[in-house]
């Protein structure tokens, strides 16, 4: 499998035969503020979508945001943190194959689903002190 691995901060342009995605690493907590000053509250749109999942945490802080592309018929993989990465491939029927990898590169989850540009796919798990980590995936094009 060929991975077109890109790790780019900020916006990137996609060719006509490429699909553009954005992933965010988010910290979910009921604390009012993150101990890290540069962590900002997520945008309203993401806040609303996360709230709709009925999670018990009320506050979501963006830890990192990465944009990446996936060429048609190939996977685009991006490292979210030293402990996880995500790959996305657009399938023939326009559905996405999304694979979530753990820190040893092991497959933690594999989803095949449609994802419209106004939708979001969220992977999550427990973190210390009864908080949680979330990785959101949005399709930009």
């Amino acid at each position, binding site marked *: 499998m060929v991975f077109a691995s890109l790790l780019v901060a900020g916006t990137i342009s996609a060719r006509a035969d490429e699909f553009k995605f954005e992933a965010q690493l988010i910290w979910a907590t009921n604390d009012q503020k993150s101990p890290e000053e540069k*962590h900002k509250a997520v945008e309203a749109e993401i806040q609303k979508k996360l709230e709709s999942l009925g999670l018990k945490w009320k506050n979501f802080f963006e830890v990192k945001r990465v944009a990446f592309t996936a060429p048609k018929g190939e996977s685009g993989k991006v490292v979210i943190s030293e402990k996880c990465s995500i790959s996305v491939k657009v399938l023939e029927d326009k559905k996405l194959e999304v694979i979530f990898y753990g820190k040893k590169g092991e497959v*933690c989850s594999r989803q095949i689903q449609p*994802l419209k540009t106004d939708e979001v796919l969220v992977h999550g798990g427990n973190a210390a002190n009864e908080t949680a980590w979330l990785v959101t995936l949005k399709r930009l094009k």
Partner: protein
Amino acid sequence: MKEDLQLKLQAYLDGELPATECPEVEALLAQDANARALLAELRNTSSALKGYEADLKLSESRDFYWSKIRRAISQPVTGEPVGRLSLGAWLRRILVPAGAFAAITIAVLLALPQPKGSGASFTDVTDSVAFTYHNYDTGATLVWLDYPAENDVATPNTDDTLDL
């Protein structure tokens, strides 16, 4: 009033007193106001409890509740189907109290394909350490990975800006 008499009074109320002992209790009730008061109290308590459970309702949606049962009964009966169900309690721990979901349409998909014609297909093809559910109103899908709080998958740390 002696304990055995009190218990006979209770049995009398419950229709459990042998017929031969009823006259004794009836005589007691006729002459002892305390006995009558105690009987009334026991009767009132029973009345108060009637209908209590009628107001207890499951807050989980029909589909959500059924999906876990269906999964369990679809498996071959071997070792631990019950263990699967207890993961539901774990899932509920990450969610707000279920009552908050009353107005939200959520489909819980546990490695089962959607029926044909539903317009969407969500498939988790891994070994079920992940739970997936989708909110059709907002278009948000959650894949929750069953890891302990120490979490060795993706804890934001100082290198990434946050040490958890």
